[in-house]
């Protein structure tokens, strides 16, 4: 049985299709990522799945249960970490966990949850005294109080410093090892690549690509991207370079997608008097490159 099945999900606000007929399936034990820029419809989609918004059209099935008529049963089996969770500031970490655990029938160990999210030393600290990263880990802890079958994480690391982000990634990967199914949204492509087994790329409310990270990168037919500063008057010359699969010009640079990085660099070296090769950069093709290739925009735009 699929952990989650979404079929032709639509959300319309004021005649605008914010989510425009998305469909996907998440298998048990998998981390599935919804990746896209701000306003792509990730959070709206996730909140419809979580029961926080009513879909305009479409069918949602969570653990075999209907997303509309069996919402109470679904709520007992899912854990949700919202983009921002506002809690009672004057409750301690352990009291907050205790409070949320009381909403479920399952008995869970507060100590075990604190260990899962690496917050043991903060168990008696009031929420107002926690750092941003610790607050996010507490929010994650609250999503675990019912030992959920499916966990939803909405942009779990947004606003965190790199250290806190990596700590949270460790926690999420630890949960995956324990067999949890996790659906997360993010606009960080490195986060999606690091954590997700499969990714759906959303843009303007539609899924424009779906697959494992290597499958998505494979859509480019190019293993590397070579970037070099390129004034406008040199664009025609660069377009004529041999051995390049695809070229994009943006930010004053030419980005050359290639499967033969050595050959491409050699061709560029032959034009060293014309192009400023001191600023030449080479990197493996990433999901961000896939997004740019598919939409013509960067993820952060």
């Amino acid at each position, binding site marked *: 049985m699929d952990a989650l099945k979404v079929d032709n999900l639509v959300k319309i606000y004021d005649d605008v299709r914010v989510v425009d007929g998305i469909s996907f399936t998440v298998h048990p034990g998998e981390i599935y990522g919804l990746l896209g820029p701000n306003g792509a419809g990730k959070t709206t989609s996730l909140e419809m799945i*979580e*029961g*926080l*918004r*009513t879909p305009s059209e479409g069918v949602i099935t969570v653990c075999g249960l209907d997303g509309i008529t069996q919402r*109470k049963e679904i*709520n*007992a089996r*899912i854990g*949700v970490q*919202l983009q*921002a*969770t*506002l*809690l*009672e500031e*004057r*409750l301690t970490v352990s*009291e907050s966990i*205790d*409070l*949320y655990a*009381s*909403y*479920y*029938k399952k008995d869970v160990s507060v100590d075990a949850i604190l260990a899962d999210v690496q917050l043991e030393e903060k168990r008696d600290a*009031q929420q107002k005294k926690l750092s941003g990263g610790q607050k996010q880990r507490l929010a994650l802890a*609250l999503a675990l109080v*019912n030992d959920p079958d499916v966990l939803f994480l909405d942009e779990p690391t947004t606003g965190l410093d790199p250290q806190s982000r990596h700590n949270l990634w460790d926690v999420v990967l630890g949960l995956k090892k324990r067999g949890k199914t996790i659906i997360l949204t993010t606009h960080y492509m490195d986060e999606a690549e690091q954590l997700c087994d499969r990714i759906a790329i959303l843009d303007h409310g539609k899924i424009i690509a779906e697959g494992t990270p290597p499958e998505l990168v494979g859509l480019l037919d190019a293993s590397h991207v070579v970037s070099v500063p390129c004034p406008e008057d040199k664009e025609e010359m660069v377009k004529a370079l041999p051995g390049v699969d695809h070229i994009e010009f943006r930010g004053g640079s030419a980005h050359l997608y290639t499967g033969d990085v050595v050959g491409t660099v050699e061709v560029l070296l032959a034009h060293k008097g014309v192009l400023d090769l001191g600023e030449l950069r080479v990197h493996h093709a990433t999901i961000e490159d896939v997004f740019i290739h598919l939409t013509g925009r960067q993820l952060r735009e």
Partner: protein
Amino acid sequence: MKSFWKQVKLQLLVHFREPEVILWGFIFPALMILVLGFVFSKKAETQSVGVTDASKAHPAYEEFMAGLTTVEMMKVVEGSLAELTVGATGGEVDIIVSLESEDDGPSLLMSYVASADDPKVEVRRLRIEQIVARLDRARVDARDVDESMFWGVQHRVLESSDDTRVNATYVARLIPGVMMYNLFMGCIFGIGIVVVRDKQRGKFKKLATTPLSKTQFILVTSLGRMLLMVFQVSAMVLVGYLFFKVSVVGTWIELVFAVTLSVWMFLIFGFAIAAVSKSIEKAVALANVFFVFSTILSGAFFSTAQMPEFVQTLAYLLPPTSAIELVRGVYTYGDSIFAHPLPLGVLVGWFVLSLYLATSRFKWHED
């Protein structure tokens, strides 16, 4: 059930860890009682004289009124005998006078007090008699002497009064008023507005993803707050006892019942305001309507007995008016709660209506 009480306990804990709760929930109402109690207890030395409307037909009415106004510390209140009787029974009117006379016969002044046991009654009667004597003396001076036409004075005790009601001090009536008024304001602003604000900030979104029902949330939150209010009420009763020697006249169990019913109704009423308000502006507007009318008409600080009858009837429909009357009946006058069926009914009516609105209209968040 165990988890229900755990939720209530944690709610209460949140309240007690909020320093402002101590300030506004305990210290502020206690100060209100102390300040108003001391200020108006001193002013009570001023005597309030009720003059019946029927007296206006008496030929010596103008003279008598002129005489009254020359006496210091006397405030004149006019009205029908029935209205003034209500005032005297409630303690707002100290003595009622009615000028009467047989056709072409001697003038007669009837004075009424609510209780003859009040030690100040004799002084009040004496001051009235002095005014009448001055009127007689003026006639002698004017050589218009006909002793058979001198004023006669008769003193009566109002039949409808009872000693407990009459001997109740201003403070004894003020304490339940301030108590209920303060708790009501705490609920319409503290719940009505705060819940809408929290909803707008998305505080309840997380709860919406749990199996917690809206009804349970409302009950848990209101019970947690109600326990806090029990402490507040206890503190105010203690202030009344320690500073003004005011004790609960009725039974404690009936007082607890009256306070609990009132407070729970206020809390659910606060949730009803939140439930019908999509925006914080609407919640503030609704809360303000009840704030203004309750401040003027609830009878928390001053009696509404002198107001027009239809205003008094309307005032009864306000949630705090009925609560104040019910709690004051038990606390100040020692009544049974069943001696106040109308306020009891109004409270239950508001409770049922508020509960319906709160549970049926409340949303965790806007879609």
